[in-house]
C-alpha cells in the first residue's frame, strides 16, 4: 500500500467529502474537496465544512460518518486521500 512517490506529496493530496440525500440537498453539493491542515479528525473536518454550510448543523445529531466506505467514529484520524462521507439516517428498503 505504501507509495514512495505519492507519500512525498502527502500534504498536497486533498480529501474528498461526499454528501447524500438530505445533506446533499440542503448544502446544494454532493462533493467537497478539502486540504487537510495538520492533524485532523472526522469531527474537526465536519466542523470546518459546517462553517461554510451552516445548514448541516441541524442534521448533525442524526449524521453518521464513513471513511473509505467504512462507518467511522468522529474521532477517527484522517489521512490525505481519504474519502469521507456524511451519512444521514438511511432509509433503504
Amino acid at each position: 500500500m505504501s507509495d514512495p512517490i505519492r507519500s512525498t506529496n502527502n500534504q498536497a493530496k486533498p480529501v474528498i467529502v461526499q454528501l447524500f440525500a438530505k445533506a446533499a440537498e440542503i448544502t446544494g453539493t454532493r462533493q467537497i474537496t478539502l486540504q487537510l491542515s495538520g492533524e485532523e479528525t472526522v469531527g474537526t473536518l465536519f466542523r470546518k465544512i459546517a462553517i461554510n454550510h451552516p445548514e448541516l448543523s441541524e442534521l448533525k445529531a442524526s449524521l453518521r460518518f464513513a471513511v473509505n466506505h467504512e462507518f467511522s467514529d468522529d474521532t477517527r484520524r484522517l489521512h490525505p486521500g481519504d474519502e469521507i462521507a456524511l451519512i444521514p439516517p438511511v432509509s433503504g428498503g
Partner: protein
Amino acid sequence: MGRLIKITDGPISIDEGLRQVAYHSNGGIVTFTGSTRSSTKDKKVKYLFYDAYVPMARSEMAKIADFIAETFEVRDIAMVHRIGKVPIGETSVLVATAAPHRAEAFKACRYAIDTLKNTVPIWKKEFFEDGEVWVGNTPSEKPKHA
C-alpha cells in the same frame, strides 16, 4: 455459495434473484420484496426516489452476505436494491436466501432485510402532490416503510 449483490436503476427482476439462489435450493428459498404503495395515511405518494452511496452500499451488502454465510446454514443469497426514480408499487428491494432447512432461510432473510435497512447507505425520498420528503428516523419523521 451463489451470490448476487446488485444496485440497479432499472426494475428488479425477481426471477433473476431467484435463479441466482436456486442452484442449491434443496429445501427452500425465502424472498423478501419491498415496495411502497401509497405510504402515509393522509398523503398520497406520487413516486419515490432513492439516492445511494453506491460503492459503500455494495460493500455493506456484501458484509451482510458474509455474516449470513458464516452464521446461518444458507448457501445462496441475493440482495438487490433499486435506485433513482421508482414508481409506486414497483419493487425497490429484493432479498432472497436459499438453504437446505427452511428455518435457516427464514432467519437469514429476516436478518438481511433488517440489517440492510439499518446499515446500507441508501435513502428514500417520497414525492407528494405538494411536496417531497427524505424518509429517515429523525425526530420529526419516522420511516414509513416498515
